[in-house]
């Protein structure tokens, strides 16, 4: 294959993207070299096993992907509002909605939430790191290289174009030849390793490394949501892994699992995909519920109402999430009985979800609501999510779904739940825990601007889409070629730009706050309203997290600690702390697997085999790695804590 065959040519937008990517790359290389930051980058970030730094890298990557997926969305909205412009042709549009969907779910929502879990969960349960810090680094780098692989498809080889669901037979070798669809398969496969490993890692961390005395029903609600999510990940992701592997074998090695020839079963893909895909949407919504619960309790200055019910409803949602996948294709003709069963199971999910909504409202009852930025995001979630939730129930009514399916009604519904649920939670959680991560808060005034722009933009963008669906506009249509659909599409596009503006203000706020925000002096950043252990640590959080781990026998332990004047630094109880050593192995191992995946995408078997052998070699090397980490001496802990606490 010649180099000109690999690069995507002939599209001005893509040339623009190539140039801008090259410029950003050169600028980064220049900055790193000029400020002599290469060593810093390697020794502080690329080799880190510290859950807090890994979390920050997850969130930075997710923000970058939010930008990329957002630009995709803007381009689609421009095309649909101005169909006469000829801005995008069909092929280009198909690639863009495919990458938009895949990136937003796999490379934005999940890593954003996993980033927050990385940073906060060990702090909430009084742990010093993950159960397996090395594996945690491995997870991040597998995600990172999977993300990188998926994104270079834009300029090298061509993007996938069969939708984020990648339905066969369309996505098979016959109808989607070339590397595009392989990028999808390998990008997801590679990053899936990390997600599955993180699921196991966090599960073990939460089950085995809680502070002394902390029972499961003493855990903060965000940690609970993480634990439930981990169970979903561990049961759902293997299905995706198998499905992706089978389709890869189909495409690269000519098997016929999902093909039209050789008695393949193309519809099996839809089943496998959604057996993972439906639990997946709960993987991105349950942690969001956890974040909202924490934020609402904190700024209502009141205990979460119905803690036990909140936990059990999450468990019920998790169980039900595995029993509803057929509702994604009621129209496949499975028959009235099958559709009836899945219709009822789908609507049942509304019960525990509704219970949660009422418990949040009850938390606000007899509270003192303080309208900080994280609280605004969390409060806005409730009415917005209700609109997405009730339309979800309508979609769950299979007989009516025959009219809603594949239409903009569906598009409006899932953006209502995913944005008002997951994206609002990501913003709420990031702003809420920002001082824990970076030692200063985000500016409140700019934060409110970002919130209101995004909030109104969101409703203006997606509310009209319900009506477009009821008027028969199908999803994934590259051109608004029915005149009646145009006005609502224009409104929708205006809203999308409002959201874009909100995001820009948010990013500017990161810079502004870095320059001008007051530096935190205490660990309890929100006017002393912290309720859980993460606020008991100092800011910035020392790399070992807790000098001494407190005894916990209740929900919201930090409130009692403050009343009794206790801290996580009891000088006479400090002992040497065992910490894991930094290592470059996870980075190198995943870079090699990334290389192997890249080889498979282009079906260059020598590259693939070379990368695989390299990765296996790294695994063997790991097996003979006798580095047990090191101990932080008592003196250093005392020095660090006294300095941070101003003692």
């Amino acid at each position, binding site marked *: 294959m010649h180099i000109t065959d690999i690069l995507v040519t002939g599209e001005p937008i893509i040339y623009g993207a190539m140039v801008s990517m090259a410029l950003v790359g050169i600028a980064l290389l220049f900055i790193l070299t000029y400020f002599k930051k290469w060593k810093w980058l390697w020794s502080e970030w690329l080799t880190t096993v510290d859950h807090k730094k890994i979390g920050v890298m997850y969130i930075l990557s997710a923000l970058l992907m939010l930008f990329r997926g957002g630009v995709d969305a803007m381009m689609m909205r421009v095309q649909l509002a101005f*169909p006469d412009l*000829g801005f995008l*042709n*069909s*092929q280009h549009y*198909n690639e863009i909605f495919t990458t938009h969907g895949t990136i937003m779910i796999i490379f934005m929502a999940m890593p954003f939430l996993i980033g927050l879990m990385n940073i906060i969960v060990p702090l909430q349960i009084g742990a010093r790191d993950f159960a397996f810090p090395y594996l945690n680094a491995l997870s991040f780098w597998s995600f990172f290289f999977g993300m990188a692989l998926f994104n270079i498809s834009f300029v090298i080889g061509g993007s996938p174009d069969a*939708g984020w669901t990648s339905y066969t*037979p*369309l996505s098979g070798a*016959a109808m989607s*030849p070339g590397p595009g669809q392989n990028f999808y398969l390998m990008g997801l496969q590679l990053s899936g390793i990390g997600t599955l490993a993180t699921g196991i890692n966090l599960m073990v961390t939460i089950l085995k490394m809680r502070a002394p005395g902390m029972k499961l029903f003493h855990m903060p609600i965000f940690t609970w949501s993480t634990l439930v999510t981990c169970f979903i990940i561990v049961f759902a992701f293997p299905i995706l892994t198998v499905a992706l592997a089978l389709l890869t074998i189909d495409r690269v090695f000519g098997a016929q699992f999902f*093909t*039209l*020839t*050789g008695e393949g079963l193309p*519809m099996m893909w839809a089943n496998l995909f959604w057996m993972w895909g439906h639990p997946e949407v709960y993987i991105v919504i349950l942690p969001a519920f956890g974040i909202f619960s924490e934020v609402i309790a904190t700024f209502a200055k*009141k*205990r979460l*109402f*119905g*803690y*036990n019910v909140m936990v059990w409803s999450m468990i019920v949602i998790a169980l039900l999430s595995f029993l509803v996948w057929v509702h994604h294709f009621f*129209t496949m*003709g499975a028959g*009235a009985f099958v559709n009836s069963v899945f*219709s*009822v199971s789908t*609507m049942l999910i*509304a*019960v525990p979800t*509704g*219970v949660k*909504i*009422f418990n949040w409202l009850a938390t*606000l009852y*007899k*509270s*003192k609501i303080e309208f900080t930025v994280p609280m605004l995001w969390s*409060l806005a979630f*409730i*009415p917005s999510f209700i609109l997405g939730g009730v339309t979800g*129930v*309508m979609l769950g009514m299979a*007989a*009516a779904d*025959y*009219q809603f*399916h*594949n239409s903009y009604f569906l598009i409006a519904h899932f953006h209502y739940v995913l944005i008002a649920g997951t994206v609002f939670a990501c913003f709420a959680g990031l702003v809420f825990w920002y001082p824990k991560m970076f030692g200063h808060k985000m500016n409140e005034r700019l934060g409110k601007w970002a919130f209101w722009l995004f909030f109104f933009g969101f409703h203006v963008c997606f509310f009209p889409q*319900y*009506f477009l669906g*009821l*008027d*028969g506009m199908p999803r994934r249509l*590259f*051109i608004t070629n029915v005149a*009646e659909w145009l*006005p*609502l599409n224009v*409104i929708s596009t205006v809203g999308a730009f409002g959201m874009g503006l909100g995001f820009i203000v948010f990013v500017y706020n990161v810079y502004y706050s870095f320059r001008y925000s007051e530096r935190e002096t205490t660990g309890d950043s929100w006017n002393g309203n912290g309720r859980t252990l993460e606020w008991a640590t100092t800011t910035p959080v020392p790399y070992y997290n807790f000098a001494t781990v407190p005894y916990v026998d209740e929900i919201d332990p930090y409130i009692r600690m403050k009343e009794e004047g206790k801290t996580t630094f009891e000088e006479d109880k400090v002992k040497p702390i065992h910490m894991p050593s930094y290592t470059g192995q996870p980075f190198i191992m995943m870079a090699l697997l990334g290389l192997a995946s890249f080889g498979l995408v282009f079906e260059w078997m020598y590259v693939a085999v070379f990368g695989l052998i390299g990765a296996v070699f790294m695994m063997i090397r790991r097996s003979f790695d006798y580095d047990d980490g090191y101990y932080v001496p008592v003196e250093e802990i005392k020095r660090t804590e006294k300095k941070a606490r101003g003692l």
Partner: protein
Amino acid sequence: MKAKHLRNRWLGLLPLGLILFLSGCGQLEMTVLDPKGPVAQSQYDLIVYSLWFMLGIIVVVFALFAYMLIKYRENRPGRKESDYDPNLHGNTTIEVIWTVIPIIIVVLLSIPTVTTLFDLEKPPEPAAGEEVKEPLVVYATTADWKWFFSYPEQDIETVNYLHIPTDRPIEFRLTSADSMSALWIPALGGQKYNMAGMMTKLYLQADEEGVYDGRNSNFNGEGFAAQTFKVHAESEEEFNAWAQEIQNEAPELTADRYNELLQPGLTDVESFSNTHLEYVKHHTKDGMGYVVENYREQFKEKLHLYEIEKQESFQ
């Protein structure tokens, strides 16, 4: 027309009216909410029935939400000491109440959903006092990116347009020659998938004469947006006359011509005086891979669609 339609459907449009007002565009004629046949009508009834529940839920939650925000904001003037109870942590009675109410709602929504689902598997029942008519069988086959409608009874076939008699159930037998697609005529009722190697049945019926929009609603590649067709619903006599005319005047669909049409791409409307069913049955295991095996190379070519409505082959 608009006013009459408004009167008839005011019940369903009432909850929507409010929301429509917000969308700032008094566009009241939404296809799905303007059913032209018994199938679309039953789905419309179900949608409107559910909308009332949804509206109720929204009103209750929004009202509670507004109450909490106004009453319990920290800086509200005149806050009392009793307005704050930081240790209030739960109440079993109220938890039971707000668990049971949603369960009741789910039951109330499930009953009509299930009965409608079973009804949709059968041809629509005629109105009281009218005779039961045998459904008209139409094979609807898709190939990238066009529609073939075969009428075995009349022994004719059309490409990219459909004629149906009113007041008679149509039994669509759906299949695909290649990618998965879906037949959707929103004015007449919901959709179902066309899948290669198998056949799905979809019953629809038109009560009113008219021309309706039909399309493939399931994304299947570059020509997806152009895979549409017009549905001409006309009286039984007009339909029979049309079918007779096609049978008499349209050319024969030869195997070669059919193979030509199957190649991936866009085509115009066409009519033939026989059906393709005598050459290949795409819903069987044998016919499943027919197109992919024969036209593997053509699938690699791109159409480069820009403004499809300005292209000759698509109007």
